[in-house]
């Protein structure tokens, strides 16, 4: 790994500019005290943090900067969703009580603003360029698509942030990942993320903040950028970033918590000065050519165990010690043999959802495949929108009807089958084609086998009942 850049060099990067403006105090040799503009809280990780706050007799320091919602444990099944809050899962009920006790803003299970924390932040305009945003969830990196320095924290750090609006951080190294060329039809930012890990592994971003740059990133919508930044944690980096541009400003304009009037003009001026300077130097540089990326599928239990749709499962014999051991264990778990072709592999369930791919564009991509077609016999398709707002839009656009007519289950906004703690859970040995972010052992249920892919690939897979290339559906659409 290269030596850290000089102070002058990092200051010319997007990351350096945001970092410098958020350092409250930097004592020599110590981590910096970093200010957080937004702290998002969810029911999955908050519990012990607020116990600590009670013990120390501390309250929420800045209520306007602290927002909570329920996403991990709330049921996606409609019949379970509108039940008496008292019968909700313990942590959901407990967050509701805690929010009341501390006077904390909460978008509860059936609030019109409720949704997966990384979907609602940008959607409500809470996430803005140049901010520091924290949340005790590793996929907080998602918000980096807005030009926001966003990273996952632990439960102890929730308490620190609630009580002081700050937390202790060491400055990270800088990395630029340039995505050249352009994506072919039927290929998405999710595929770029998986292709990057197939090439460079799942630790290449460790200790770094990754800035995604290059023409293919500039051409991406904000939502596509979110899917890419979402996966930066799987690359080992707590934060992914994309420089804010007109696409970002257009996305934010008019959103509920976005600045308005004179505040908007002032904010745009502030945001426009954030991008890395043309001569900025990064600690590490990587590149990938988008035009060579095919629809990607994972075959193992780490997101880097991925190949193009036409590829085959690799052989552990070709790898070094620990990687070979990991692959052997993974293939045993997955019930796959080296040399197997993934296209055509039968799946039991298809899941379209999660903070990676549950936004309106993801659902539109799935709908282009599902319109007028049916889910294959013997395969279940579950589609769970990322937020109440996404759900409303999908219903207004007629997408929900397309899904239901194709034979899909249409769920209530939640993390659902990505983390499998809300009652949606895969069976042992079951193959699940999933648009989520992690194919870890038992992530989607004890013994469940995950194949990660983009929403369009997942939709094609649901129609065929086995892993399918989405590209023919694009040309015939």
């Amino acid at each position, binding site marked *: 790994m290269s030596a850290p850049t000089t102070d002058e060099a990092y200051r010319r990067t997007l990351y350096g500019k945001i970092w410098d403006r958020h350092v409250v105090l930097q004592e020599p040799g110590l981590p910096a005290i970093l200010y957080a503009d937004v702290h998002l809280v969810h029911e999955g*990780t908050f519990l012990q943090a607020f116990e600590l706050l009670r013990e120390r007799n501390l309250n929420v320091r800045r209520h306007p900067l602290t927002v909570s919602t329920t996403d991990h444990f709330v049921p996606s099944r409609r019949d379970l969703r509108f039940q008496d809050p008292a019968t909700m899962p313990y942590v959901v009920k407990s967050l509701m009580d805690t929010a009341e006790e501390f006077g904390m803003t909460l978008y509860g299970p059936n609030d019109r603003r409720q949704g997966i924390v990384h979907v609602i932040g940008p959607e409500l305009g809470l996430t803005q360029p140049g901010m520091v945003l924290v949340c005790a969830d590793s996929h907080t990196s998602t918000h980096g698509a807005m030009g926001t320095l966003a990273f996952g924290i632990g439960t102890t750090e929730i308490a620190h942030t609630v009580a*002081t609006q700050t937390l202790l951080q060491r400055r990270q190294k800088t990395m630029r990942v340039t995505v050249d060329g352009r994506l072919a039809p039927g290929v998405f930012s999710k595929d770029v993320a998986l292709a990057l890990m197939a090439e460079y592994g799942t630790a290449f971003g460790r200790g770094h903040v990754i800035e995604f740059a290059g023409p293919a990133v500039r051409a991406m919508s904000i939502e596509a950028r979110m899917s890419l930044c979402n996966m930066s944690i799987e690359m*080992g980096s707590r934060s992914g970033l994309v420089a804010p541009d007109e696409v970002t400003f257009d996305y934010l304009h008019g959103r509920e918590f976005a600045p308005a009037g004179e505040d908007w003009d002032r904010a745009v001026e502030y945001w426009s000065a954030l991008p890395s300077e043309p001569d900025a130097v990064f600690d590490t540089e990587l590149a990938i050519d988008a035009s060579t990326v095919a629809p990607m599928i994972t075959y193992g239990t780490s997101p880097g165990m991925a190949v193009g749709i036409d590829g085959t499962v690799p052989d552990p014999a070709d790898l070094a010690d620990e990687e070979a*051991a*990991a692959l052997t264990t993974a293939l045993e778990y997955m019930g796959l043999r080296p040399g197997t072709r993934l296209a055509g592999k039968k799946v039991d369930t298809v899941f379209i959802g999660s903070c990676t791919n549950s936004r309106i564009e993801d659902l539109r991509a799935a709908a282009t495949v599902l319109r007028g077609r049916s889910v294959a016999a013997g395969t279940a398709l579950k589609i769970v929108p990322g937020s109440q707002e996404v759900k409303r839009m999908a219903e207004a656009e007629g997408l929900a009807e397309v899904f239901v007519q194709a034979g899909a289950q249409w769920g209530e906004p939640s993390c659902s089958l990505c983390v499998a703690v809300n009652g949606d859970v895969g069976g042992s040995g079951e193959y699940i084609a999933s648009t989520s972010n*992690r194919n870890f052992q038992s992530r989607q249920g004890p013994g469940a086998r995950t194949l990660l892919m983009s929403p369009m690939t997942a939709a094609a897979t649901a129609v065929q009942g086995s892993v399918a290339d989405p590209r023919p559906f694009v040309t015939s659409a």
Partner: protein
Amino acid sequence: MDKIRAFSSTLIPMLIANVDTDQIIPAQFVSSRTTEEFAHALFRNRRDRDPEFILDQPAMQGRSIILAGPNFGCGSSREAAPWALVAGGIRAVISTGFGDIFNNNSLKNGLLPIVVSETEHERLRSVAAADPDVEVTVDLPGNTLSVPAHGITIELRIDPFYRHLLISGMDELDYLLSHVAEIEQYEAGDAIHPTTRAKLAGR
């Protein structure tokens, strides 16, 4: 938190790449309450599926240092991962690199994430393979990891600030709270994000 001094143990070899925090503690157990519950949750899905899982082998009982493969603790930010490891009697994990969030969470809970070079890791692997019951000593105040029987001494690379906290039993929150004046100054100053300034002003 208890102050950390030197301790010794034989090694638990868990030489597999990318052991993620979902494996360390499955999501359904993250809201466990007691030490017993966290200890039970540790690697639960792995243990339920594999009776030979390393932590359940009789020879491994009572050991407190894991010799792990690369990228240990990747994935989910759940602080329950170090909680479960500590509840299960683990005091240190040795790897060539850790998930960044796991690394931070561990340091807040008295679990030492010890980063060694590829060469050092290889040396420890071969020692552990040849001499499975060899004693390893972690001396945080002395800043070393050593295998006295084989003449190995490795300097620890733990962030000096956290090393100081762990040795002294001090708490990060106390440090932050001692700087409330600077935080207030920042909130009233020019550097703060314009939207945040507006929100704090009640707009």
